[in-house]
Every structure is written in C-alpha cells, then in structure tokens.
C-alpha cells in the first residue's frame, strides 16, 4: 500500500531518507505518544482484570498497587466456577457464592446465537423482498418498517415487558429472543442497501432458466450477500451477547439468565463493604472470553465492518 501520509511542513528533512514512513518529526513523535497513551488506557483495564483475577482476595488489600498478581492463585476462578467448597471460598475472601457458570454460559450462547441466526435469516429474506422483488407498495411498507429506527428502545421496553407478561413469556427463551429476533430495522436496512446494489444480470439469467424467486434468493442472492451478512451477524451477536436491560426485565430465573446478569447477581451476593474483587474479575474475564476469542478469530473483519456499517 502506498504511504500517502506526509509529515508536517515543519519536518522537511535536511537529508532525504529513503523510507519516508520512518522519518522522524516532532509531529510524528507527538502522534505516536498520543496513540501510546490511548492504547495504554484501552488495554490497561483488561490487564487489571487478569491481574486481579489471579490474586488472592485478602492479600489484594495489603498490596493493592502491585502490577503483578498478589499472592498468585487460581482460587478466584475456582470460586466462581464452583469448584472450591463454600468454606474454601470464604477462607479466600469470597462470599461463598458461586456462579453456575455453565448454565449462564449456555443461556448466553442460546440467546445470542439463536437471536442472531433468526434475525439475520429473516432480515436477509425481507431485504430480498424489498430490493429484488417487484410488488406494489414495496417502498411504502419498507418505509413504515424502517421508522422503527426512530423509536428508541427506552420507549418500547416497558410496553414490551407488559406484553411479554401478558403472553406468558417471562422467564422463557422465547421472551428473551423474539422481540429482537424477528425484526431489527438496522439489519434490514443494511442488507437491503447492499442487495439494491447487486447487478440484475445474474438474476435475469436465472429467471430465463425458469428459477423462481425463492430459488434465486437461496442460490444467488444469499451467497452474493455473504460478506455483509457476516458483518451484520457479528454486530448482532455482539449486541445480544452484551445485552443487559431486556434480560434484566424478562429473566429473573437462573435457568434463562445470560452471563451479563450473572455478574450482577454475583456482585450482589458479595458483601458491599468488602467485595470479592478477585472473584468478580475472574467472573468478568470468563464472561468476556467468548467475545475476546471471537475477536481473535475475526478481528480484521470486525474492524473493517465497523467502518462499512457506518458508511452505508
């Protein structure tokens, strides 16, 4: 890639060097110092989670500023995962409360993946109908649906809770998943926008061959849309995985609560005056791990898709 970045006018080199990118200038030094500070502030809390999670909760108080784990132990993870006995946990400064992490993890996985799969498939199907098929009233219906973008979640949360209650969906996965899983204005808008830009030639060829709209959708449009579908899937998954408010309203039973709620539960069971910070950080790390792994696997795609989703 050609480096088009040029240093500021102040940095006109006395001796021309070959590698312009490495050329020193005060502006460049300031820029890198700034970036260094940003990276430090971004990453430090992540390190601090790890450092605290590997510390002994009692000894944390004696040496709170140590950059390394204080009294290194896996105890916090054992407490959270319920491997340690209550007595052991309390001896380490825990409340004795454990987090049945397997259940919360399962719930988070079900919630985030089912909702993502559902919304992406349904949005793609609807986007296809709104972009490639021709029918009367198409744009009107689309504009009505897209008006949902204007309604902030704060406004639908309470009535949706009442509705879920009326429908008997409290403490069910259906109640957790359906409100956000059938329709998301953003996903529909985003995928339609992409499909509008696809060339019609391929489709026409398929029509000539006698392929019906459904066949065209599954065999031609869907494969051609795989990149934006991946983008939407990632964004939807991150959203659902991190969702807190809706699960808080809809799920007060452990059997359906996702990890985000589990952290709150764990925190509340820990004494106010002397919280089990090591345990909390261990739990936070476990809750964040799937996202961090996803990021390791798809980091570049996620990074590129953010810009893409913004430009539309």
């Amino acid at each position, binding site marked *: 890639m050609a480096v088009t970045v040029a240093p500021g006018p102040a940095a006109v080199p006395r001796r021309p060097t070959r590698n312009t990118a490495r050329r020193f200038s005060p502006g460049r030094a300031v820029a890198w110092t700034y970036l260094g500070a940003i990276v430090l502030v971004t990453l430090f809390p992540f390190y601090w989670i790890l450092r605290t999670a590997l510390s002994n909760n009692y000894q944390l108080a004696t040496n*709170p500023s140590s950059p390394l784990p204080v009294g290194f132990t896996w105890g916090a993870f054992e407490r959270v995962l319920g491997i340690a006995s209550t007595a052991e946990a309390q001896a380490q400064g825990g409340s004795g409360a454990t987090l049945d992490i397997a259940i919360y993890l399962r719930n988070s996985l079900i919630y985030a993946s089912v909702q993502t799969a559902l919304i992406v498939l349904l949005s793609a199907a609807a986007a296809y*109908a709104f972009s490639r098929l021709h029918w009367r009233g198409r744009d009107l219906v689309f504009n009505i649906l897209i008006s949902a973008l204007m309604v902030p979640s704060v406004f639908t949360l309470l009535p949706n809770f009442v509705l879920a209650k009326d429908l008997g969906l409290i403490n069910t996965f259906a109640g957790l998943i359906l409100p956000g899983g059938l329709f998301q204005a953003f996903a529909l808008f985003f995928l339609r926008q992409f499909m509008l830009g696809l060339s019609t030639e391929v489709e026409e060829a398929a029509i000539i061959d006698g392929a019906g709209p459904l066949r065209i959708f599954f065999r031609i449009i869907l494969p051609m849309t795989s990149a934006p579908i991946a983008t939407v899937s990632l964004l939807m998954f991150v959203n659902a995985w991190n969702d807190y408010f809706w699960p808080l309203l809809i799920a007060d039973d452990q059997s359906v609560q996702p990890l985000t709620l589990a952290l709150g539960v764990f925190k509340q069971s820990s004494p106010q005056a002397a919280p089990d910070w090591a345990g909390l*950080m261990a739990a936070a790390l476990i809750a964040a791990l799937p996202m961090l792994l996803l990021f390791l696997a798809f980091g570049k795609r996620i990074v590129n898709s953010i810009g893409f989703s913004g430009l539309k």
Partner: protein
Amino acid sequence: MVVTSQGNHATPVKPRSGEPGAVATTVTSPGRGPTRKARRATATRSAAARRRDLPVALLLILPAVVGFAVFYAYPTLRGIYLSFTDFHVLSPPNWVGLANFRELFGDDVFWHSLLVTVYFVLLSVVFGTAISLVTAVVLHRVTRSSVLRGVILLPFLISNVIAALVWQWMLDPTLGIVNIALKHLTGHSVLFFGSGGWAIPSLAAISVWKWMGYYALLIFAGLQTIPATIYEAGRVDGASEAQMFRRLTVPLLRPILVMVVVLTVINSFQVFDIVQVTTEGGPANASNVLQMYIYRKAFRQFDFGYAATMSLALFALLIAVTFTQLRLARAGESDLN
C-alpha cells in the same frame, strides 16, 4: 459451485457487479439455448414477475412485519396509551387523562434526572467525539495498522456490565489503582462513585472509554473517503497541519461527525447498564439518570403508568434533539459533493 464461490468476496466495500457469464452457465441447464427465450423473457419480465413476486414477497417479509407490529408498533402505541393511565401491572390500567403529565411537571426528581442525564450526555458527546476524532485522524496519518485499530475497538466488544465493574474496581476509593496513583501524585484520593460531583463524570468516562474505539473507526472510515489530492493541494498552498485539519478534514467529515454525535446523544440519553452496576443512581440521586428513574418507578414502585409517561417524555425529547441536530448540521450535505 460457481455461484457459491462468487459470494465469497473478502471485502464488503462495494457490491461487485456479478459476472454474468460465469453464473449464467451454472444456472443454465445444459442443452437449452437462452437466446430466444431471453428476448421474450425480458419483454414480459416486469409484468409477469410482478404478478409472481407478490406472494413470495409477502411470505418473505411476514416475520419482519409481525416482529415490527408486535414488538415495535403495538408497544409504541400501547406506551402512549399507558402514559395516560394509572397502571400497576396487577390490575388493568385506569384512564387518568393528563394526571401523569401534571405529576411530571411537579416532580423535582424527574427534572433533576433530566438535568443529570443532559450533563452525562454533554460530557459523553464532547469528550467522546473529540477523543474519537483526534484518535482517528492520528491513526490515519501515521499508520495503516489494523492491529492498532483492533486494539482500540476492544472495549466495544465487552458488555457495559464488565466495563462498569472493572472501572469501579480501578476507581475504588481505597484499593483502586487510579486512586492509589492519585494519592501518590496529589496527596489525596477521590470518591469517584461516592461523591455527588464525581459520579456523573466517572460514568461518562466509562462510557467514553467503551465507545471511543467504535466511533474512531467510523470516523476513520470517513477519512479514507477523502481524496489525498485535496491535502496535496492544501500543502501546495502552504497550509499548515492545523489549518488543514480545521479547513479540510473537519468540514469534509461533517456527515460522519454528525452521525457520531447523533448516535452518542441517542445512546447516552438511554444510559442504564453502567449506572445500575456502579451507583444505582446514588449517591442521593446524583447519578439518577432518566432511564434509572424510569426503571425504579416501574420495577421498584410498580408505577408503570408514570414510568410510561416519563418514557414518552424521553422519546419526545430524543426526537426533538435528533431533528434539531440534523437540521443544524445540514447532515445530508458533504462538501465533497
């Protein structure tokens, strides 16, 4: 299958015009000459397709329409209705007319909440946008590293709950690393979440930390659309870096910046998770943001009617703010066009 492999473009930047030759051969069943049929098909395509498309289209949009009707449209109307009622969940709502709205106007806690929320929004927007903009510009000028861009995005990927927890731990008055450092440097520590003056700035800082990378990447993508020749021209005219930033970068980025500001405003007005995890609105209502107050009214005092009224007020406020912003910023226009 050729069709499938065609779909795997690596970059989602622009819809690629399909290569008709390749696909046509795969979909065409062997032994059929498309030419005559093609001519007839193109002639009658629109009319025939329209008739054939409608039922399929209705089938395909059905789930989305149901989802919209059941979970967006109906709740919106019902929310408006409930705001005119006295509703405590267990018994059916009673129509009380404007009573909730009258209560709203006399409710000091509500106005305080509004003030606190606006304060939070202002801090988040000003600092969030400024830091994201500077970060994006600096990144764009000195490096193309996607690793670095990935690193700043990390906080966006974790939940608000985790972000709030780790910052509450780092800002802890006695054991928190930030306070230990502060005490070292200034001699005293700060009750970040325990003092009225610091609660909202602390929450805003967490929010900025969480969203900065995301917004920086949006702005970064906008920067990539600005042609380098514009800067070259500026340089030829003898403009300094600061001048080019002010006269070229910022005006050309206006549509993206407006989007970032609008998104930040909409998100910040609805802040809840980080408040619920850290201060729960305290101390003494100092961080009782609107969303928190609504939640407490509805789920602690079960006053759903009044909570709905406050939601409606917040909704109206959001619409007004967003429209004003778009108006003021002439969002649709870019100086590039």
